[in-house]
């Protein structure tokens, strides 16, 4: 092509032009990456990906338009303005993913923060191309200029949109991806400053770019820790232990003396009031069994129910069945956790088996004088199997003729239909039942169901040991009284092929959570 359109030679020399065109490619890639990051993060944290993506992209494009409009107010030194814009984008865009992750649990309204950030980055990115066109206008003819700039802009967009899902998110993760592209923006600024250093004062801008770049490099090396901090913020307490096993994410937090266990984000106990939950779980059973020599615990891998059971000298053997080996190992070997359960998992009277209880009960043989069924709430169809008639028939087979069992049965206040479904289902499996409830501050009003083979012990008073913190001969019988808002109602039997409990549980808790 004949170079006839070349304008007056007032602009930057050719090397500058090449760097500037290359920077179009880089800034276009970075710009789209930040947009994709914001959209992905928003759908990751807020759900409903169609809404999040479309509102984030819309705001971003609108803000770019705003930035382009604002570029008219840059009246001189476009190059200097462009370099500062790069540094600002590097700081905001580079830290965007990390910042949003950390802010999510803290911010009162995460959306305000999200869209403010999207608008700010969008406006800055919108400034880039008009400024670059103006910087380059003296170097190329208008025809070539528009062609060059838009070509690199769109090629950059393609690179970003392919690299983001295929390479960046799977291999770098979102926090590191932001940091890496922030560094690319910094690199553009620094490269231009170095090229220009003979023609103008660059020291202040170089220092700013250097600081942003350094912060991004530090951020890059600490991405893992940032992820952890954001989890700390989510839990509102110090995370002292966290582990992802094949079955769940176990997180242990501590604030002051309060130790809390979360499984997949759901609170399992708080050390402040777990004695209420576990005394109420264990003693109404043990207090009604004449000779509780053999006790079966299904679930309860934290060893806290076992701690209560082992206080009873009549108990000669406890068989505990928990799915997750990591869970029982943690509560056996971590000193502060073992202290909490009084080393119940390493007691010579204890046998721990890591197995799926749904399968284990079918192959096991009894009899057990007491059975404690302490599973997570039936939030999933898979867990719902542990609350079915078929499962209770197997447990009933393992229960001695004069044995008593108890089932953790969710909140009778929040989910009364679900609570009484457990009783109906146990009765369908041929057992007699008696529901009760206790107040556990960190859970709320909580429910349990006693069951047995129709022996009178179920309705008799319990023989409780001395020294319990929550239960005594006066408070224990009160647990069996249900005021009208929690009173028994007619419910279906929870079967493997209808999973009535999982359905009612989801309904009742969704209504309660609003």
């Amino acid at each position, binding site marked *: 092509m004949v170079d006839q359109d070349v304008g007056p030679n007032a602009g930057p020399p050719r090397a500058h032009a090449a760097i500037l065109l290359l920077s179009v490619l880089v800034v276009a890639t970075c710009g789209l990456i930040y947009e994709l990051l914001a959209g992905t993060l928003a759908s990751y944290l807020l759900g409903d990906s169609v809404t999040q993506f479309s509102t984030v992209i819309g705001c971003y494009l609108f803000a770019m338009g705003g930035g382009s409009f604002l570029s008219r107010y840059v009246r001189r030194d476009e190059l200097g303005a462009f370099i500062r814009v790069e540094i600002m984008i590097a700081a905001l865009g580079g830290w965007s993913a990390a910042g949003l992750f950390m802010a999510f649990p803290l911010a009162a309204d995460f959306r305000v923060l999200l869209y403010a950030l999207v608008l700010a980055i969008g406006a800055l990115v919108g400034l880039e191309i008009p400024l670059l066109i103006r910087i380059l206008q003296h170097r190329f003819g208008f025809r070539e200029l528009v062609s060059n700039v838009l070509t690199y802009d769109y090629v950059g967009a393609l690179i970003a949109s392919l690299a983001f899902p295929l390479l960046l998110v799977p291999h770098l993760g979102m926090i590191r991806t932001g940091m890496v592209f922030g560094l690319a923006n910094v690199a553009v600024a620094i490269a231009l400053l170095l090229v220009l250093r003979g023609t103008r004062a660059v020291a202040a801008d170089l220092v700013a770019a250097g600081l942003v770049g350094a912060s991004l490099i530090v951020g890059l090396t600490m991405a893992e820790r940032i992820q952890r901090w954001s989890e700390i913020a989510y839990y509102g307490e110090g995370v002292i232990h966290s582990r992802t096993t*094949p079955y769940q994410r176990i997180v242990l937090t501590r604030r002051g003396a309060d130790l809390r266990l979360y499984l997949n984000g759901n609170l399992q106990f708080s050390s402040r009031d777990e004695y209420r939950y576990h005394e109420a779980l264990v003693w109404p059973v043990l207090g009604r069994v004449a000779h509780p020599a053999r006790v079966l615990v299904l679930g309860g891998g934290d060893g806290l129910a076992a701690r209560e059971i082992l206080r009873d000298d009549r108990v000669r053997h406890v068989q505990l069945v928990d799915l997750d080996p990591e869970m029982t190992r943690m509560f056996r070997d971590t000193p502060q956790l073992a202290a909490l359960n009084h080393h119940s998992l390493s007691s010579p009277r204890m046998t721990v088996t890591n197995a799926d209880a*749904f399968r284990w009960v079918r192959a096991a043989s009894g009899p057990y004088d007491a059975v404690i069924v302490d599973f997570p709430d039936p939030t*999933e169809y*898979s867990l*719902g*199997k542990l609350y079915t008639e078929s499962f209770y028939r197997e447990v009933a087979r393992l229960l001695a003729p004069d044995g008593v069992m108890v089932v953790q049965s969710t909140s009778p206040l929040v989910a009364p239909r679900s609570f009484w479904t457990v009783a109906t289902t146990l009765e369908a499996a041929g057992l007699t039942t008696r529901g009760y409830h206790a107040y556990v501050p960190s859970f709320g009003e909580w429910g349990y169901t006693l069951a047995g083979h129709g022996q009178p012990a179920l309705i008799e008073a319990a023989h409780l040991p001395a020294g319990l913190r929550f239960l005594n001969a006066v408070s224990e019988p009160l647990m069996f009284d249900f005021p009208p808002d929690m009173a028994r109602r007619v419910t279906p039997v929870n079967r*493997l*092929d209808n999973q009535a409990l999982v359905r009612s549980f989801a309904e009742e808790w969704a209504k309660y959570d609003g």
Partner: protein
Amino acid sequence: MTAEVSRRAVLAGGAALGLAACSPATAAPYPGALLGADVRRGHRLRDAKGQSAFPPPSGAEERIPLVIAGGGVAGLAAGWRLAEAGFGDFALLELENEAGGNARGGGNAVTQFPWGAHYLPVPNREARGLIHMLRGFGMITGEDASGAPIYDPYHLCADLEERLLWRGTWQEGLYPASGLGAADIAQHDRFNAAMEHFRAAVGTDGRPAFASPSALSSRDPAFAALDGQSFAAWLDAQGFTSGPLRAHLRYCCRDDYGTEPDGVSAWAGIHYFAGRRGWAAGGAGQSELTWPEGNARLARLIAARLHPQIRPSHSVVRVVRDGDDVVIDTLDHLAGTIRRIRAGAVILAIPDFVARHVAPDFVGHAGFSYAPWVVANVAVSRQPWGAGVPLAWDNVSAGSETLGYVVATHQTQSAPDGPSVLTWYNALSVGDPAVQRRMMLRRSLGEWQKIIAADLLTMNPELDGAIERIDVWRWGHAMVQPVPGFRADPARVVARAGQGAGPVFRAHSDLSGLSLFEEAHYLGLAAAEGALRHLGRPVESLL
């Protein structure tokens, strides 16, 4: 060994090598194996062109009163019927190393899994033989006051049974529940009402219009006429044109018959919806019986009972009549020898395309066509989930051409996460089955794994990094196709007419045209009872 290598095989192998050399896609991205019916053993019969390619029988002639050729569900059911009658004097010859046919399964350290058919709908009241067998296996534990069978809940498919990925969200059931127009909803309701009508319909001969097993269906011409047209043509004529409805019906036809709606007889298409009147106590009639290993559970329970009679790795190469006897030449694939058996009766429980080569005197030339399928077992380190309802037994995407996946641990596991095996199904139903079959065999393990992984990851992106192994089973002739006119096909009519005669009895779902467990089971029982009578043993029918 030289006899095993035909020129055709050498050429095919050369072509495969050539492809492998120039295709970069052949490196398998996951551990796994390419499995399937032993094509070499099967094609040896086809390529033999008569029996001249096989050496003459060696050793002494063996005398066995009754021989069952073929250990698929029909052959096993025939054997079960003989055992049930107290008759043990028979041999069951099975080409493969393991009996079971389409109802075979495999396993790994985590779970058993199916290689083919994975469920059995709760049988209808008329499926007496099948109900009898399920009672014997302890799957039916009693009867309620009305006499309806009580099924052991462990064998009934656990909730959640099915979910559909529809517009980005998993929803319960396989029919879209949201985003449909009023016309779509009205058509769906009208379709359901039409099927309800057919389900309740009784022909002039007093039989249900659509029975399961299909042999017990009415012969009333009013219903028989439905066989003359394709399901697609019938739907068009009835004004069932709604896109979501037709997409769902296409899924159903491919799932049960491996065939597109325009290749399925309207009678078969309607049978899918109107033939099921499951008879069970406690409202379980709509349910399915399923096991981690699928129908291999049933096949293995039968095979265990027939252990002394089953001869694996034995194929029948020739069946001819000699006076009142039948002479059967059988090839022992491990020893490479041909032995001769003289029997009083034989049950041919082998597919038609094999039977016509080995027993041309008894099997007319039928033009049956067969649908190829690909089934993969995908070992995953964690279970899939996704937006919407949680993981179900059967998981299907409205946006995928494949038939989705079934979770092998669904019946046995209560862990909400952890390792599992996903059984992925696809019927290669578009276009000419022979072309699809060739393409299926030509693709390398790596190519299949890429297709399967891409399909799974599109449905469940969170499985990224969780796929540990993909084993792929290629079924060249997975299912006979119930094409328009299949009920009246002269080959089937002749075969059924010859059933009572002997000494050769036929039993295979090919004869019914519906490749379903209930069909094969019924035909196996019918052949076994016919053979017992032929041998002079009185038998009270279970049919």
